[in-house]
């Protein structure tokens, strides 16, 4: 069976929402058990006292990309059939900058705030309410944002294509960069004063 299973018709479309709940449960369980339901633990990455976000995030991204390239290599999955988020350069950067500000203020991202709500964090409930309001404001202010939202469409661009190297070489370099960051993070964490939370 070649993946992706549902788009290629190996599993009926009707199962899609069942898998949504099951995969979401796996997502929520791994985030919470890694400590992503605590804003103070998450913020440790930015002050050097706990690099859990850096370690979990990059390990997860590398696991997924290596897994997908491997499954593609042995013919079990079609890497080119997977959805690639299109690149709109200005919107990706501006949106990312605004999200980064929100991250430092709120201490959560949307997914981690839902995990924190699930275990009873009131601050995360306020963050989630803020998400609703922020998305509503964006939607209503869209005429003002439309130009930047639609500008510089580079399509489903892959980062290795943009750099002119193969997917395998890029992934290998990504692993080296991640290992370097983990090494530095471990040294920094050993030197920074511990914060209790």
């Amino acid at each position, binding site marked *: 069976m070649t993946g992706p299973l549902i788009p290629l018709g190996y599993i009926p479309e009707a199962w899609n929402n069942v898998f949504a709940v099951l995969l979401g449960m796996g997502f929520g369980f791994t985030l919470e058990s890694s400590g992503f339901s605590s804003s103070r633990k998450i913020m440790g990455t930015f002050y050097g006292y706990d690099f859990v976000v850096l370690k979990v995030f990059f390990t997860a991204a590398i696991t997924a990309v290596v897994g997908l390239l491997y499954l593609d290599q042995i013919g079990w999955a079609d890497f080119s059939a997977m959805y*690639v988020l299109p690149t709109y350069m200005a919107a990706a950067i501006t949106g990312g900058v605004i999200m980064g*500000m929100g991250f*430092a*203020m709120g201490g959560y991202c949307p997914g981690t705030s839902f995990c924190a709500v699930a275990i009873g964090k009131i*601050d995360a409930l306020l963050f*989630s309410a803020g998400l609703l309001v922020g998305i509503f404001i964006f939607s209503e202010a869209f005429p003002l944002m439309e130009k930047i939202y639609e500008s510089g469409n580079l399509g489903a661009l892959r*980062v290795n294509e943009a750099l002119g190297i193969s997917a395998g070489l890029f992934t290998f370099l990504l692993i080296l960069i991640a290992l370097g960051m983990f090494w530095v993070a471990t040294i920094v964490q050993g030197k920074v004063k511990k914060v209790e939370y």
Partner: protein
Amino acid sequence: MEKSEEKPGWRKGNFYVNPYLGGLMLGLVLLATFYITGRGLGASGAVKNTVVTTVHTLAPAHAESSHYYSKFLSTNTQPMNNWLVFEVLGVLAGAFLSGLIYNRLNFRIEHSPKITSRRRLIFAFAGGMLFGFGSQLARGCTSGAALSGMAVLSAAGFITMMAIFGTAYVFAYILRKNWI
């Protein structure tokens, strides 16, 4: 009795799995999501879907004439658009289960002892607003754009990830009195 002095035990509420093991597990969930559905995981999209559906119910003409809401209305009958809502229900259930197992379920406002609960809640709400706004501009948040984008080597995934973390480092320094 200083609670923070206690050694981590898996029923004491302060036990977390090893970050590399947690990352591996999260990566496998993401891999399974792509293998089964051909798409990645997300979070902000479920909130967007809630906003679009609510506005469309309360003010259908307004939603249909809007350049933004209307992008998502035409596909509202397709399962893919609701997919993230079901996924987020799963996220809530999965996180609750983990909190139950590791004994972390309780109502509280988590903040640095140096700031008040009120200040924490105001910043949490404002941070959520900015994150929500930015996620629509970038067409996804840390989950849907950065993590899932990186898994398929999307250039936008890497750009958004660097913009989020780079800016967060700058603003974390400015706002350090809120956290440390």
